[in-house]
């Protein structure tokens, strides 16, 4: 077989001449959101400082990127030198030695990164990915609509009942105004990110201490029932296919009273060029139904270098550059201070221009700092909107489908949760947890 293989490779290489990445050239896989696109635009600055490195970008939507990089890294394909991954992947991949440990110069100032974020991207104190930006979840609302409905504003950490009351007061279906917009599109990173967090704030959890799934608990029932009822009362039509982007459009158009989602949305709504509600927004910490712990999530998009990369040194230099304080300053100076990636470094919030340009900075920072994703006596997993085990993706996706079905009224909440329990139980058994 050996000669055959060599011949085949020879032929392929000859045919693909010029298409093979050479040393000094790195390929970065990333998702298509605003901050990442700014990073692409600023690549020239990096290449100027590092004339020996050429940067290539592969931009995909979140789901497709995740599939691509997971196939690549688990087979050591070596197609990417830098990958954009999240807090969910890093602990799992790092533990399998799929990622290169990050060692940077002192100027990088690792301690400047918020502890919660850094710990989420580290194993035993070794960082395996560097945070590009961090986020939590909070309430973002249209001040005009909330006040028009007779409320002064929304207090921090309100009860879910208060939210429901305000939402109902705002809703005016004939005028196309909806009190509350929440995610409904199925997927572990879509509706489950929100619903999982909401359920935690009702005292529910994904798994019991013995790793049996806990979707059959009364808390889950209470949370999902509340969600479905509130969305039927005050949510927009088409909620079952709404996720972050769709709701952002609705908010920017002034059609939604409240939105509880990623803090990063705040910066996207304060740009007057794309938003009709810029300057008219209020922010508050996430609601709960008695359980403050895990009532807001914690997430970071981070850059990591796969162990299969052939250009690790170059890749590490890029990661260091893109997640440094200098980079944040560069974005602020060239793209405006409203566009800087937030939530990763303390020093960002000390920059005066940044504080002056952003109304949401305090609320965002408070949300990030108050997030509690670590395991406890009763909760065995790390994560709020996710549980950092490999099986969670499959479970989250399948359970998300059931939740969407419940939201659209196809099946009852009881039925949806019973199905969810069965799905999760199958996956956990298949994976050998019990």
């Amino acid at each position, binding site marked *: 077989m050996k000669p055959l293989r060599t011949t085949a490779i020879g032929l392929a290489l000859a045919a693909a001449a010029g298409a093979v990445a050479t040393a000094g050239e790195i390929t970065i896989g990333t998702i298509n959101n605003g901050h990442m696109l700014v990073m692409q*635009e600023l690549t020239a600055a990096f290449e100027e400082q590092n004339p020996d490195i050429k940067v290539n970008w592969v931009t995909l939507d979140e789901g497709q990127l995740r599939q691509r990089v997971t196939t690549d890294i688990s087979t050591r394909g070596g197609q990417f030198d830098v990958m954009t991954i999240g807090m969910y992947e890093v602990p799992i991949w790092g533990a399998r030695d799929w990622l290169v440990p990050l060692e940077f110069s002192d100027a990088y100032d690792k301690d400047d990164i918020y502890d919660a974020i850094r710990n989420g991207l580290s194993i035993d104190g070794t960082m395996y990915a560097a945070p590009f930006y961090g986020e939590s979840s909070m309430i973002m609302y249209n001040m005009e609509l909330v006040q028009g409905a007779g409320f002064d504003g929304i207090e921090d950490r309100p009860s879910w009942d208060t939210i429901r009351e305000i939402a109902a007061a705002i809703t005016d279906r004939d005028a196309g105004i909806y009190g509350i917009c929440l995610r409904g599109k199925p997927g572990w990173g879509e509706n489950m990110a929100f619903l999982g967090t909401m359920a935690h704030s009702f005292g529910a959890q994904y798994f019991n201490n013995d790793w049996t799934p806990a979707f059959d608990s009364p808390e889950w029932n209470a949370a999902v029932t509340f969600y479905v009822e509130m969305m039927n009362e005050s949510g927009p039509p088409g909620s079952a296919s709404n996720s972050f*982007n769709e709701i952002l459009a609705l908010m920017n158009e002034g059609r939604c009273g409240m939105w509880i989602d990623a803090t990063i949305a705040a910066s996207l709504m304060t740009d007057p060029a794309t938003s009709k509600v810029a300057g008219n927004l209020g922010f508050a910490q996430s609601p709960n139904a008695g359980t403050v712990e895990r009532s807001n999530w914690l997430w970071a998009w981070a850059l990591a270098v796969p162990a299969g990369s052939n250009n690790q040194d170059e890749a590490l230099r890029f990661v260091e550059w893109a997640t440094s304080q200098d980079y944040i300053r560069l974005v602020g100076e060239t793209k405006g201070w409203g566009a800087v990636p937030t939530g990763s470094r303390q020093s960002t919030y000390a920059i005066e221009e940044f504080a002056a340009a952003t109304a949401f900075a305090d609320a965002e920072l408070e949300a990030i700092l108050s997030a509690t994703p670590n395991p406890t006596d009763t909760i065995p997993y790390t994560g709020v909107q996710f549980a950092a085990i490999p099986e969670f993706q499959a479970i989250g996706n399948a359970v998300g489908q059931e939740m969407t079905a419940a939201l659209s009224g196809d099946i009852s909440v009881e039925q949806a949760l019973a199905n969810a329990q069965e799905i999760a139980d199958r996956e956990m058994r298949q994976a050998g947890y019990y």
Partner: protein
Amino acid sequence: MTDKQKARIRHNIAVTAAWIVALVMFFPIFWMVLTSFKTEQQAIAIPPLLVFEPTFENYATINAQTNISKFAMNSIVTSIGGTLLAMLIAIPAAYAMAFRPTRWTKDVLLWMLSTKMMPAVGVLMPIYLLCQWLGILDTRISLIVIFSLMNLPIIMMILFNYFRDIPVEILEASRMDGTTTFNEITQIVMPLAWGGIASTALLSIVLMWNEAFWSINLTSNNAGTLVALVAGYSNPQGLFWAKVSAVSTLACAPIVLLGWLTQKQLVQGLTFGAVK
């Protein structure tokens, strides 16, 4: 009313109906192109805007953010390369099957078709690992080979049907004159079936141009096609309808234009083929 008048009215109704249906069918494409010239705000305005000041901002953004010519080049090379390779394999085989059918021919054809039914997603890992083993991940070669093998059954099927329609008498006459098989293919069969071959090739180019699964999963930086570019814009953060319309328009325009230009050819070719 005379029969002639009746027939005329019927004719007019049919023509009007044809126009209405054609406009309705084309409308989504028209709307996409129109949206690509709006700002993101205008794209989601209610009621929808028909008249507005067009902007080229979306196209400029895409041009600035991506190296669109690289993606376009990959699409062109892989779809045309794949088609050429597939035709090269398929024409002799279909020719032999059409003019030298055995009792197995029909079964072989249907078996070929059945290979097309393997769901791509079920064989992703095998193909991915094979490409990795051969070192051809993220190359145009891998896409060309996969595209051509994937579409070979369809191409065989359609070509076979075209060739079947060539009157055997013509071939027999030429054989009497002692023509070689090579000459028979190149000088008699090919010219006669030219329309059919051209339209099969066009169909194959369209299918390969639009192939999404392998183009996304086997490429990263070097061999990404326009489909992969569209995937990068399909669900970004923030408002995106206008930009996604622009990138989609760019990605679909070449193939739609090709379809339009070769429309006559297409019609002739298929006429010869699908008809006794």
